[in-house]
């Protein structure tokens, strides 16, 4: 993971955009916590600069 984060930094992206969490399938509340944490973090970092602002994306790029 440290390698991926270094690579993102070298590319010019924020390393915090990727993170790995280990947990078992039974740890629902831990999953919710990290999902919320990542959602907040990504929202704070803003859209991926490689893809541009949300309104410039196609439906498929937005995942719709």
């Amino acid at each position: 993971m440290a390698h991926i984060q270094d690579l993102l930094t070298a590319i010019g992206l924020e390393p915090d955009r990727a993170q790995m969490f280990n947990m078992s399938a039974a740890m629902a509340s831990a999953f919710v916590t990290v999902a919320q944490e990542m959602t907040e973090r990504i929202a704070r970092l803003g859209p991926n600069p490689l893809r541009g602002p949300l309104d410039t994306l196609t439906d498929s790029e937005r995942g719709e």
Partner: protein
Amino acid sequence: MIVAEQKSLDEIKSLIGDAERVLVVGCGTCVTVCFAGGAREAAIVAASLRMATKLDGNGKDVTDVTVQRQCEWEYLDEIAEQIEGADLVLSLGCGIGVQAIAEHFPRKWVVPGLNTSFMGLPTEQGVWAERCAACGDCVLGLTGGICPIARCSKSLLNGPCGGSEGGHCEINPDIPCAWQLIYDRLSALGKLDLLMAIQPPKNWKTSRDGGPRKIVRDDLRLGAEEE
């Protein structure tokens, strides 16, 4: 195997300069197994360059392809069209691969994406260590299969030096003293008498000191008999 390490993305970007169409060429042999320049690394470098150059405001057309062995022209023929179509080739092969491309495609600009480091082996996952310096006159038969040229910091033939301490080399305590290893192995195999013979100065002409080397095998050359 030949062991290499990737250059930083910044250095690779400056080597690429203003070329617009870049072909990243991986190699499926040594640099694949040392995780420096195989198909996976070539794809990652190509994707990283696409992203990095786009963020810099001048997205380049970067593609990748991997051949079985970059150090043989036959394999390079398979990607001749892709090479011709690129402004610049970024080789993720060892230094031999880079030169094979340069020699085979005289009009193509080719740059290295790796630093070729040494000939060695993986001693554990993620760790590679030097084992041979291609001296051209192997002495492993005298040293129990442990190379004093590549593994002794001073390439001593009649070691150890006075700096060997607790099995570690005085030049770098992180590496084992090669002559301690040789002594231990010969001792375990009951061949310590080999160490009683003084080795004369080595003829380094067979090594790099004799200039660039070449091997010619007339029994294998095509058309050699008619010559």
